């Protein structure tokens, strides 16, 4: 075993109140790092890139595993695994979420990795994150001061930076009721279906009203910028427009201004832009075909 692992301390809370109080006490000194499924954390530990010494084991907090309907939406506990999300009937009304859950890592990862962990890890390539953006998710953070809600779209303030206080713990994610009749598309583009970290990941929702005009649009992206983001220029170009090949061309142009892909070990900027534009074109073709079929 790697020598460093034997030096690490783990604190096991009795319940959530105990957990947030431990986190609060540690925030001033050597902060406890929350440990959920460990599928990201142990990769960093095994590689030696994570040097935190004290961990807050969330596994005793079984209440954070629950997935349940809430006010027309669904509340997913931070410790719900992707396998649980893929199978749970309450998530089926947000189909892009189970779709994403089934392509995160492979079975061994899906059995351990949690939604809260994916959010907290804040990788720009996190596969569930564009889905949460497209569904207007709300993140619930608990602390000794109680629970507060943060719009998922406001959670990331920069590369792997979260708008959370050091003593706050992500306890759940809520997806509100979604607009009916919207066309949705989840696409993950990587070197293979399983295990690969995405070169481009997309979650889109688009609805055309009775007058033939787009009245709801979400175009959310991963792996094309320092944070998971919605392409606001492309969304503006679509909102209020009538789906058409001309409109699609303008939207693709706008997308190039929205995203900032980079060259790295997995892909390069030019390829990522080309793929993102192709995925967007595919999505708009599907939405356009729906509209004409009415």
């Amino acid at each position, binding site marked *: 075993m790697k020598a460093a692992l*034997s030096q*690490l301390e*783990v604190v096991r809370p009795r319940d959530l109140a105990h957990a947030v109080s431990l986190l609060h006490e540690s925030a001033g000194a050597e902060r406890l790092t929350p440990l959920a499924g460990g599928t990201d954390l*142990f990769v960093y530990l095994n590689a030696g890139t994570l040097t935190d010494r004290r961990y807050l084991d969330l596994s005793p907090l079984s209440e954070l595993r629950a997935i349940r309907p809430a006010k027309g939406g669904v509340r997913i506990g931070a410790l719900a695994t992707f396998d649980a999300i893929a199978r749970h009937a309450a998530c089926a009304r947000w189909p892009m979420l189970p779709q994403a859950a089934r392509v995160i890592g492979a079975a061994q990862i899906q059995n*351990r990795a949690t939604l809260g962990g994916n959010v907290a890890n804040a990788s720009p390539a996190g596969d569930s994150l564009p889905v949460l953006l497209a569904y207007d998710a709300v993140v619930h953070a608990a602390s000794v001061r109680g629970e507060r809600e943060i719009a998922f779209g406001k959670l990331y303030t920069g590369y792997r930076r979260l708008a959370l206080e050091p003593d706050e713990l992500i306890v759940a994610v809520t997806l509100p009721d979604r607009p009916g009749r919207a066309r949705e598309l989840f696409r993950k583009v990587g070197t293979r279906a399983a295990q690969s970290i995405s070169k481009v990941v997309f979650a889109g929702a688009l609805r055309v009203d009775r007058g033939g005009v787009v009245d709801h649009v979400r175009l959310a992206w991963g792996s094309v910028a320092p944070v998971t983001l919605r392409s606001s220029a492309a969304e503006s170009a679509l909102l209020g427009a009538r789906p058409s090949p001309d409109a699609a061309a303008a939207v693709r142009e706008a997308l190039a201004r929205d995203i900032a892909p980079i060259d790295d070990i997995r892909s390069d900027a030019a390829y990522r832009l080309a793929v993102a534009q192709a995925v967007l074109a595919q999505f708009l073709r599907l939405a356009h075909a729906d509209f004409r079929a009415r």
Partner: protein
Amino acid sequence: MSPRVRVSLTVNGASRRVNVPPMKRLLDVLREDLGLTGSKEGCGEGECGACTVLLNGAAVNSCLVPAVHADGAKVVTVEGLARGGRLSALQRAFVELGGSQCGMCTPGMVVASAALLARCRGRVPSEPEVREALAGTLCRCTGYQKIVDAVRAAAGEGRGAAKPRARPVAPAGRRASSVRPRRRAAR
């Protein structure tokens, strides 16, 4: 002094108790503290699946599981699949159908396959289903087709269908298709 915790777990049906650092990897607990060296370390980052074990029935990468998460859990390793020295139907199918070559991925492959077959409850999984269930277990010999065949044959056998007909495996060095037969150094 490094911190230690007592972890009680059931491994392959037997109650075990270890006193280990809380973040020691389950893989290392199994191999070093319990002497079960069937589970292998390939990548140490959850990519290759050679360390796959069942944790409360679910396939997991034991290189990513801290010892504290195994406290109170039921763990099954590749050593727990055979019954009294008799290979399981799944293991026999791997042997008879050539589902194992160098053997490095085999423990993970067999355990991940066992998780799939348990979920199928006697139904023969489709080929894409097997490939999806084994997508997180990499074979460096790239012998995937025979592995998939073995899993499906074992599922059929478990259901009482015809036994998999084993193709005779030619001894090393005598394969007709082999251009340069690999020879062991003669001593």
